[in-house]
């Protein structure tokens, strides 16, 4: 089954709705890497991630997660993957503890294993005191932290996050960034989309820039600067330069 060291390998991925959104996308993320996917609005970042997580069926192409063909064996791929969209997938009437219990049930983690992990996550994300309060009373940041705990409870090898910092205040954003970095330090692979270029600049090991349905550029910050034509550019300058003149 494991034919590659890649955590995520995408080849020739295509998807069209009313018009083509993704056209022949190739992307590779190595294990233990924090990869930031950037792109202008409507570039196809979310569509790409939704195809990886099995929420949208691609028209063509292949997706391998740790060597597992995600299209042929979606359940095996899902078992090692977590998805955290920009709108948290929560039940407002459940408490964080109950939500984590439900998610652990979906991933079929034995209670003896899941309950201590839930306690650790709730304490680490500063949700312990609110663990028996229904999510409907929480701020957006609190909800995002509950959803993050849900994403981490089954110890995914690949964590995929779509705009995880949207709407969070500075302290919450810091907590989420720390959580992502810690997950990577513990061996997980993280793929994240963000509009906040500073996050990609400071957090990501490698950055991919997507536009017009394909990967326009990819590499470390230095490599992207070089591709954009100047070593002294900020990521913002490089991003604008690369997305303005694709190819």
């Amino acid at each position, binding site marked *: 089954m494991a034919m590659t060291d890649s955590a995520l390998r995408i080849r020739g991925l295509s998807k069209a709705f009313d018009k083509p959104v993704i056209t022949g996308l190739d992307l590779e993320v190595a294990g233990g890497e924090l990869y930031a996917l950037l792109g202008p609005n409507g570039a196809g970042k979310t569509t790409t991630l939704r195809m990886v997580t099995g929420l949208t069926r691609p028209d063509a192409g292949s997706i391998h997660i740790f060597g597992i063909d995600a299209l042929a064996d979606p359940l095996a791929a899902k078992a090692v993957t977590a998805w955290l969209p920009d709108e948290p997938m929560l039940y407002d009437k459940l408490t964080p503890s109950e939500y984590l219990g439900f998610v652990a049930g979906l991933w079929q983690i034995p209670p003896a294993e899941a*309950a201590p992990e839930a306690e650790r996550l709730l304490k680490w994300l500063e949700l312990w005191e609110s663990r*028996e309060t229904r999510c409907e009373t929480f701020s957006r940041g609190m909800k995002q932290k509950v959803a993050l705990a849900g994403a981490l409870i089954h110890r995914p090898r690949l964590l995929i996050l779509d705009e995880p910092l949207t709407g969070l205040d500075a302290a919450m954003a810091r907590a989420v960034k720390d959580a992502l970095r810690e997950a990577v330090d513990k061996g997980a692979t993280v793929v994240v989309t963000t509009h906040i270029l500073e996050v990609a600049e400071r957090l990501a090991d490698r950055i991919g820039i997507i536009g017009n349905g394909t990967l326009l550029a990819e590499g470390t910050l230095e490599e992207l600067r070089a591709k954009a034509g100047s070593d002294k550019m900020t990521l913002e300058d490089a991003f604008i330069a690369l997305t303005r003149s694709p190819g």
Partner: protein
Amino acid sequence: MHRLRPGSFAWLVLHELRVGSRNARRRARSLWFGLILLALFTGFGIMIALGLRDVPIAGGPALYTGALAASILLMSFMTTQALLRSQHTLYESGDLDLLLSAPLEPRTILRAKLCGIAASVVLSFTLLVLPFAIPIAIFGHPGLFGIPLLLAALSLTSACLGLAIMLGVVALAGPRAARTLGQILGALLGGAVFLVSQLMSNGGGGRRSAAMSLFNWLMAHRIGTGGIGALPGRAALGDPLAAALLLGGALILFAATGYAFGRSFLASYQKARMRLSRRRAATGPVARHFRAGLFGSMFAKEWRLLARDPALAFQIVLRLIYLAPIALAAFGRGGGPPLLPALAFASVLIAGQLVGSFAWLAVSAEDAPDLLTVAPIARRQVERAKLASAMAMAAPFGLILPAALALSSPLGALATVALTAAGGACAGLIEIKWQKPAPRKTFQRRRSGSMIAGILTLLATAFFGGIAALAVFLIG
């Protein structure tokens, strides 16, 4: 709208009507269905009008009492709608923050909202009544043009009553409880006429409609034959003084409500926007929330979501109260009811509807469908767990009638349990097959999403109910 002064009362009313009409807009298919129904109603109304062309319609004690009974029934339904709309305005409409932050008088906003509530209330009844009343008025009975005026007066009064009840509930029960209590009161008010009429008809030994029961009671007590009680009848028949009195009274009530409740409306809204959920003290470990199998996790989730939405749970139980007399009535006509087969039939019908309702909540009204899709579980497995959860939640209710049956016929009770389970499973499977994503709060309108599911559920449960009744009848 551009001709009106921005921010004026009329401008706000027009805004309310526009927003209301967009909220009510359905899919094209439903719209066409509604238009065809309206055309049929109007055609039927014209036929009746032509038949009544040369028949004099003169006022009298019976007609006035009939009009009063109809007005009372209409008012009860209208007040229910107005109460639910008021609850929606306070808790769920998203525009009050914007309106109240604008340099506008809160009283003006309240009056515009009241107009919106009255308009939404009157619309559904107008569509039912006017296709008959207007043709009759045109073809020889111009006095009946008083009916639209009567409807306007009733809807304005109902809007005021609905808002006053809602604000009263907020004041008495507090904003958190009022959210649920408002919905429960609305459901109770809506069902009250039906339930009271059932009681009245059972008491009288025969089965009559709610309107007829009320009419007989009013006639017996000589209410509505003259004086104030006759005003609705006189207004409907075109008496200008009666129409002016009713409409004038409604307008005065409308103005007084806007004046009297302006401040409390604002206060209620501000309270309603506060934290609406109880914050529970966090104690103990979290292990008790973790379960081994998929069914355990799914059942715990579905049960908690239902238990924490008492208004929704109440709506479901109320539907059972409506169904019970209907189911028993099906076997109750002529020659005394064969009670045991009737119980078996009712058991399957009620449990089937219940499982269907729970399955709709679990499948179509799933709050986090993406979470289930990204989980490493086959969709079929998730649906099976949801069906099992729905059946498990319905089981305690589904066992009540078979338990009663068991006192007389244990074997019949066993057959009923088996067929109740089969009917319930069938109802749940229909909901799964015809699932259409929708928010939980649209439970009451879920059949507008999939009418086929509703019809098939009824047919399937009636089928299994029939077999159960036959089995119990044969077992004896």
